[in-house]
């Protein structure tokens, strides 16, 4: 027996029918995956990071498999805000799930401009701000690892939109909770964590980096313990809703993220391996809640016993 009410979660004003979201960069603009995934069972999707102008992205090779993970250096290939509004929004409006729009930019003004241009789009339920992309020189990580940038970006964007504002944090820092606090104090409704960790791989035959960009972002099951530690750190130190990301591949992982402090989670790399994961995990989550007599999924958030 499925009880949808028990699974809904609120992130600021953002009401999600269940805590399972699809992570930015692993669901495109929803089009391909909509052909087979039942979106009515998905909490929401976060669209591929958008920049003001279209970006071509990095040359191949953009991805490398690693042990229980992968490196990517896509380089924020995206259609740009204008084309997004023109050609992607109409399709997104047809989807029966919450649409969260992820923005990545190379300057604080560009972030603000993107949000301003997109703010009127009804279908956009929230903004997720990518300040932590490790794969482009001129954007993202330089902000994500710098506390004052996070402060500035958050407060500037808060002034531009009333929609829920989610800051996506970089794990490549010593104390992620400082960044979560900066986000909170400057008006963010939630943080999402973690983005990928900087990694690299070399081909021992050619001695060349396996990625054209040399370094890339590490994702997948390999990074899960790191994500759990980061989320737990934020949960202990800062009172802000956390959207957990990093290596989730099944329902047990999801539960572990909620226990560690997350209010909702995002599936990333696993969408490539099993594009039906979101639906499967929801079924398992329903079973788990029935078996464990969980009435409200929100009861699990930060339910760790120390």
């Amino acid at each position, binding site marked *: 027996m499925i009880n949808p009410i028990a699974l809904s979660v609120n992130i600021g004003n953002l009401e999600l029918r269940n805590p399972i979201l699809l992570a930015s*960069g692993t669901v495109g603009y929803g089009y391909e995956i909509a052909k087979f995934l039942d979106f009515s069972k998905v909490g929401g999707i976060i669209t591929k990071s958008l920049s003001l102008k*279209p970006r071509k*992205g990095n040359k191949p090779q953009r991805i490398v498999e690693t042990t229980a993970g*992968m490196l*990517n250096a896509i380089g924020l290939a995206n259609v740009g805000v204008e084309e997004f509004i023109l050609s992607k929004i109409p399709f997104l409006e047809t989807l029966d799930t919450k649409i969260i729009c992820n923005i990545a930019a190379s300057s604080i003004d560009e972030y603000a401009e993107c949000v301003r241009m997109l703010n009127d789009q009804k279908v956009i339920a929230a903004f997720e701000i990518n300040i932590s992309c490790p794969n482009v020189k001129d954007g993202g990580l330089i902000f994500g690892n710098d506390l004052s940038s996070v402060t500035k970006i958050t407060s500037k964007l808060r002034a531009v939109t009333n929609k829920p504002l989610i800051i996506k944090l970089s794990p490549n820092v010593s104390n992620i909770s400082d960044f979560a606090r900066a986000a909170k104090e400057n008006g963010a409704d939630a943080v999402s964590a973690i983005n990928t960790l900087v990694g690299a791989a070399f081909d021992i035959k050619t001695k060349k980096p396996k990625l054209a960009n040399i370094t890339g972002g590490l994702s997948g099951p390999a990074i899960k313990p790191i994500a759990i530690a980061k989320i737990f750190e934020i949960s202990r130190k800062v009172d802000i809703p956390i959207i957990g990301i990093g290596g989730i591949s099944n329902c047990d992982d999801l539960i572990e993220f909620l226990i560690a402090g997350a209010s909702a989670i995002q599936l990333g790399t696993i969408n490539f391996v099993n*594009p*039906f994961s979101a639906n499967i995990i929801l079924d398992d989550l329903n079973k788990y809640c029935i078996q464990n007599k969980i009435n409200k999924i929100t009861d699990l958030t930060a339910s760790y016993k120390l």
Partner: protein
Amino acid sequence: MNQYFCKITSNRFITKNTFILECECPDLVNIIKPGQFCNIKVSDNLVPLLRRPFSISDVQNKNISFMISLHGKGTEILASKKEGEYLDILGPLGNGFDYTSNDFSKAIIIAGGIGIAPFPYLIKKLKVLNISFECYLGFRNNTEIINEGITKYSVATDDGSFGVNGNIIDLLKKELVYNSGYKLFACGPTPMLKAVQKFAADNNYNCEISTESAMACGFGICQGCPIESTHQDDHFMLVCKDGPVFNSRDVKL
């Protein structure tokens, strides 16, 4: 695209390094096209994590088969699969060859090494449509020759141990009788595809090439498989979605 759990009906080596993995997939046999591929999870372990892309090689009754060359860990695991085990497959993926357009008089099939994988199925379809064809195959040496499902072929080997001594272009130059109405269909390693691309351009052939790229998803959501377009400079095309088959005029290799 859908996910299928397919019972393996046979798995056998045809050369030292190449095997044919056949499985039952009644749903796919009717919809999959020559040149399309499937993305296979080689085991339910998290290592290797990603699926592995393989061209559909042949279709017989309810069965589809893959022709696979040993490469690394993933193909090794696939080689060890036994009849009766199950395979987790996503497919059909990609576009496939354009062989039904009736705008050519003969299909010239050009394959390097394991690049012959998609052609048994293409040949089967060509035969059904009564389209004539010729095959030109290149291998490193005579121990690596694969001709499973291939007819009307000439062979070149790099070391001359079988057929023409030289590469596939040497073979084409030597044996292909020019006819501007022919259409080339090529698959093989990128350096070979580059050479075929140039050969086609030089001789003004209509030519389709099946390209390869590292892939994560295989169906267009990860942007992991870019390929440069000759027409648009502002974005890459995707091998998995816009390809893997491209007209050789349309891509920079």
